[in-house]
């Protein structure tokens, strides 16, 4: 595609002629969509939780993403119908956030942090290792994320994931693992392919506080007594 690709007169006429007033996406009528019951229920639960229903926009998009794997136009339309907003509104919200996918992505989502601390500790190599292991394009992964050809993996170089202490690290299917080495990437991909829990020894949940389990100075805290009492 040329950078400033223009339409020929014929293409333009055709495009304009194809635009019908009924194509404009207003608030979809709930009755005309076959919204999956589970999805509808999740969205309605979210709407009920908040003082104002629009607060449920992000939970609704999460629900759509869980249901369809990514926020498909149909899914967004369904969520919009349940919420009584226009799909464009939800699309605007969805495209704002990094974790909501508005185009198809691989089944397992691997986010490799490549921000400052992780980069200093070798995140670029780690991202490369994940891409190689999963078969995703390295350059795309660094920018917008790349999916493997088999549709199993989505690898993305992510801006800070908030786990600089385990740099370099990655979030695999919403769980944090680190510090990782290139070999871990291969192991993780394999484990995911086999349907197993990846890198269970490197999960963030297992990591103790940096200062060690036995804090040496709590004597000065008088609330210790309060707590003991």
């Amino acid at each position, binding site marked *: 595609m040329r950078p400033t690709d*223009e*339409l*020929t*007169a*014929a293409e333009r006429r055709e495009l304009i002629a194809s635009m019908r007033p009924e194509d404009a996406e207003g608030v979809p009528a709930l009755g005309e969509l076959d919204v999956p019951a589970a999805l509808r229920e999740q969205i309605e639960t979210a709407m009920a939780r908040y003082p104002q229903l629009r607060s449920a926009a992000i939970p609704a998009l999460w629900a759509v993403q869980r249901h369809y794997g990514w926020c498909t136009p149909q899914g967004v339309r369904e969520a919009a119908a349940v919420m009584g907003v226009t799909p464009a509104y939800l699309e605007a919200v969805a495209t704002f956030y990094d974790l909501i996918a508005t185009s198809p992505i691989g089944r397992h989502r691997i986010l490799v942090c490549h921000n400052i601390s992780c980069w200093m500790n070798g995140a670029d190599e780690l991202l490369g290792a994940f891409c190689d292991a999963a078969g995703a394009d390295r350059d795309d992964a660094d920018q917008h994320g790349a999916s493997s050809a088999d549709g199993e993996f989505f690898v993305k170089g992510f801006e800070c994931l908030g786990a600089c202490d385990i740099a370099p690290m990655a979030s695999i299917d919403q769980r944090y693992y680190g510090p990782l080495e290139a070999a871990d990437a291969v192991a993780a991909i394999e484990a995911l392919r086999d349907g197993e829990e990846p890198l269970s020894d490197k999960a963030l949940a297992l990591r103790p506080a940096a200062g060690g389990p036995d804090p040496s100075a709590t004597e000065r805290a008088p609330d210790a007594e309060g707590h003991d009492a």
Partner: protein
Amino acid sequence: MNEEFPYLKDAEEVVTVQRGPEPGGAKGAYRAFGETLRGLRTTMARLIEGPMTIQYPEEKTPVYPRFRGRHKLHRFEDTGLEKCVGCSLCAAACPADCIRVVAAENDPDDRVSPGERYAAVYEINLARCIFCGYCEVACPFDAITMGHEYELADYNRGDLIFTKEMLLAEPVERTPLRREGE
């Protein structure tokens, strides 16, 4: 005391002019007719040279490089597309209000100019034009320049409205030749 001019009290007031000796004979004759002869020489020289008249319109004098004559519109040499995009800035700049531009949209399959827009109509009313050159200055794409063409007379006012095609083409030979017997 000045002897020659006794009425002058102070000799210092006198400027003495040094003259040569009075000429006589041939020298005197030369003094009398020399300039006339010199003039005659020029005359004679032209006489043998033949006529000096420039046979306009058959012959033309060259104009200075920055002479502002009839306008020209230009094309890109490589692509052949018109440089003019129909922006109308020339029309805005024109103090005589003699330029009319009607723009239209390009079809990328059948381009007239690069970009989105081209001049569907580009007319200059040369009967009004004062040849100030502002259009040339205003043009952001050097699409219009003032050429060296100055033979613009015509029998009809309407014929002085130059269209885009005329302005894009090389100026036609407009030399009016006298008919037999005129």
